[in-house]
């Protein structure tokens, strides 16, 4: 007991020496992110974004004189690891809030536990079930997958597609997406002629796309977040299946398009506007936020921004605003997020409410396509 107190005192002392934080209790933020593993394209940019942002904020004196203390745990995309790290962050590190997990499966696994510990969770994953039904302390900053499916079906209708093949990975994200797609397809008059679930570590999907070819589909819709989504495109083109290919918002890291090379041309998917920051109108509300994040991130890490890093940016921004309003009172801070309106983030404009812990509307999405190895807004 004594030792912890001394350690705490030492920490506080150290903190007060740095940039004169006047000994205020730091804001401890935990992050559960898949920095490595199959979902590394999500977690790694998220972790980098948080590090960059925390450094920037602390250099400016922190949040109301509070230093932000960031503790990142690499879950490797594994729900079991996410649970044990969540326990560690809450019980040992005593964090005020947790950002992440990056994937839906992990978010679903940890949400009840984190909520019961009265710790704010800002998930960066998409699955709707993370915030339906609403748990008081659980929020998510990635747009819903039903909106993504809705956007895709609207585009399919425009192209006159009636018969599709669905591929998804065996992860929380893939599963949740597949459910939404199956639920919403009939309303749009679209028939799912074949639906296949593949392993998240799949390295070749020729047999799966052959099955879709046999089913005479008019378009392919793939729902996953792993490198397999690049492999699907290549394999489809290699067996001579020339139908339009749609991807979920999980495709919104340009690395995936680069990995599929020439095969990625013309792939369509919904994503938030950050991936097309350059082509946004100057009047766009999101333009300043998106541009400043993009500039900072790309200058520092020498890689393109993705929507995923943007989720971490939004999550920390929302948390900081709540703490500015409510201080380090968990219940008050939670309430502050719930009542937050008009927060302009990289994913869109957030309007939270007690019934909606996601806060984004379908307007957060734009249909994007791949042209010359780059993401561009579809139809422009």
């Amino acid at each position, binding site marked *: 007991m004594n030792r912890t107190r001394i350690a705490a005192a030492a920490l506080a002392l150290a903190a007060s020496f740095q940039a004169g934080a006047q000994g205020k209790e730091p804001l401890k933020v935990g992050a559960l992110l898949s920095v490595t*593993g199959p979902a*590394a394209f999500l977690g*790694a940019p998220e972790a980098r974004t948080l590090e960059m942002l925390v450094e920037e904020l602390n250099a400016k004196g922190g949040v109301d004189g509070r230093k932000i203390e960031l503790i990142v745990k690499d879950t490797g995309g594994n729900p079991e690891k996410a649970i044990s790290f969540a326990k560690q962050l809450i019980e040992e590190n005593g964090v005020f809030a947790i950002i992440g997990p990056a994937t839906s499966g992990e978010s679903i696994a940890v949400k009840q536990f984190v909520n019961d510990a009265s710790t704010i969770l800002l998930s960066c994953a998409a699955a709707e079930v993370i915030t339906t039904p609403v748990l008081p302390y659980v929020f998510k900053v990635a747009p819903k997958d039903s909106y993504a499916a809705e956007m895709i079906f609207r585009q399919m209708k425009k192209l006159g597609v009636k018969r599709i093949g669905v591929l998804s990975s*065996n992860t929380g994200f893939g599963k949740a997406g597949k459910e939404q797609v199956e639920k919403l397809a009939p309303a749009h008059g679209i028939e799912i002629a074949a639906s296949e679930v593949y*392993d998240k570590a799949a390295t070749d999907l020729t*047999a799966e796309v*052959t*099955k879709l070819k046999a089913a005479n589909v008019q378009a392919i819709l793939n729902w996953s977040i792993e490198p397999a989504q690049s492999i699907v495109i*290549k394999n489809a083109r290699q*067996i001579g299946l020339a139908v339009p290919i749609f991807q979920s918002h999980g495709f919104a890291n340009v690395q995936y398009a680069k990995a599929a090379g020439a095969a990625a041309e013309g792939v369509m998917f919904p994503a938030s506007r950050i991936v097309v920051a350059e082509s946004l109108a100057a009047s766009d509300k999101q333009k300043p936020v998106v541009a400043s994040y993009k500039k900072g991130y790309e200058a520092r890490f020498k890689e393109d921004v993705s929507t995923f890093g943007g989720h971490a940016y939004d999550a920390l921004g929302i948390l900081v605003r709540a703490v500015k309003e409510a201080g380090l009172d968990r219940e008050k801070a939670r309430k502050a997020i719930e009542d937050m309106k008009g927060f302009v983030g990289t994913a869109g404009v957030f309007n939270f409410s007690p019934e909606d812990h996601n806060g984004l509307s379908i307007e957060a999405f734009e249909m994007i396509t791949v042209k010359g190895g780059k993401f561009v807004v579809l139809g422009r």
Partner: protein
Amino acid sequence: MQTELFFQYLVAGLTYGTIYAVVGVGFNIIYNTTGIINFAQGEFVMLGGMTAVTLAAFVPLPVAIAAAVLLTMLVGALVELTFIRWLGRPTVLRMIVITIGVSIMIREAALVVWGESVRALPYFTGDEVTSLSLWGVHVSPQVLWSLAACVAIVASLWAFFQHTPLGRQMRACASNRDAAALCGVPVRNLVTLSFALSAGIGALAGCVVSPITYTAYNVGTGLAIKGFTVAILGGLGNSTAAVAAGFLVGVLEAFSVSLLPTAYKDAISVAILLAILFVRPSGLFGSAEVARLEARG
């Protein structure tokens, strides 16, 4: 099923099969000279692919691949020199623990060096959308490259083991280590060579399949499991059998997709493995007598 689709599935199966087969062959070489199952075999495949991708940015592709193979052979030899050589007569369990440890070390080192991102070599011929159409069946040229590499590896191994003095010494070492040592065969050095050789084969495989499957620091484990499966299935120690078993598993997996949901694909290969091991414990092509003698000795 239409013939065209039948052959399309077959091609998919051959693609999977080559990948499994070349990894399986690597297991066999080390097993033959040492009786060890090297669980770091998948990491050699990864190292080959990653090194080649890095080098390909500076030198032409064939040079990058050759250099990657040589570097990985060096790593293979170093692994043996550092971790295996000084052990007298290690138990199987100890060897398993050591090779798994080595595989984790290599993987973590690769994470530090290359980070978590996924890479691939460019397609050797054409690009991601190129496909050759043979009687209505579409094949990516890279699949043909990997098939050719697989055949070349097996053929040159066969020639090496049958027709060179060094290969004969390695076989002698495999059939009876003590007797070989008494006849003046430098057993220890041959073990090092076998590690280098299987690392080199793994690396070559890693280069050839990387445009198809991509490569990342953590692909080794998955590859090792499949390669191990086909090595066992074919009968440990027999490289040609491992290749046959690799194609068998690959083709069955591909056709299983046509009938069953994809989710069962991996279950199918494990089920086949179990079924065959119940009936033929020495593997499909393994000799029952050898298995019995080995169990006794």
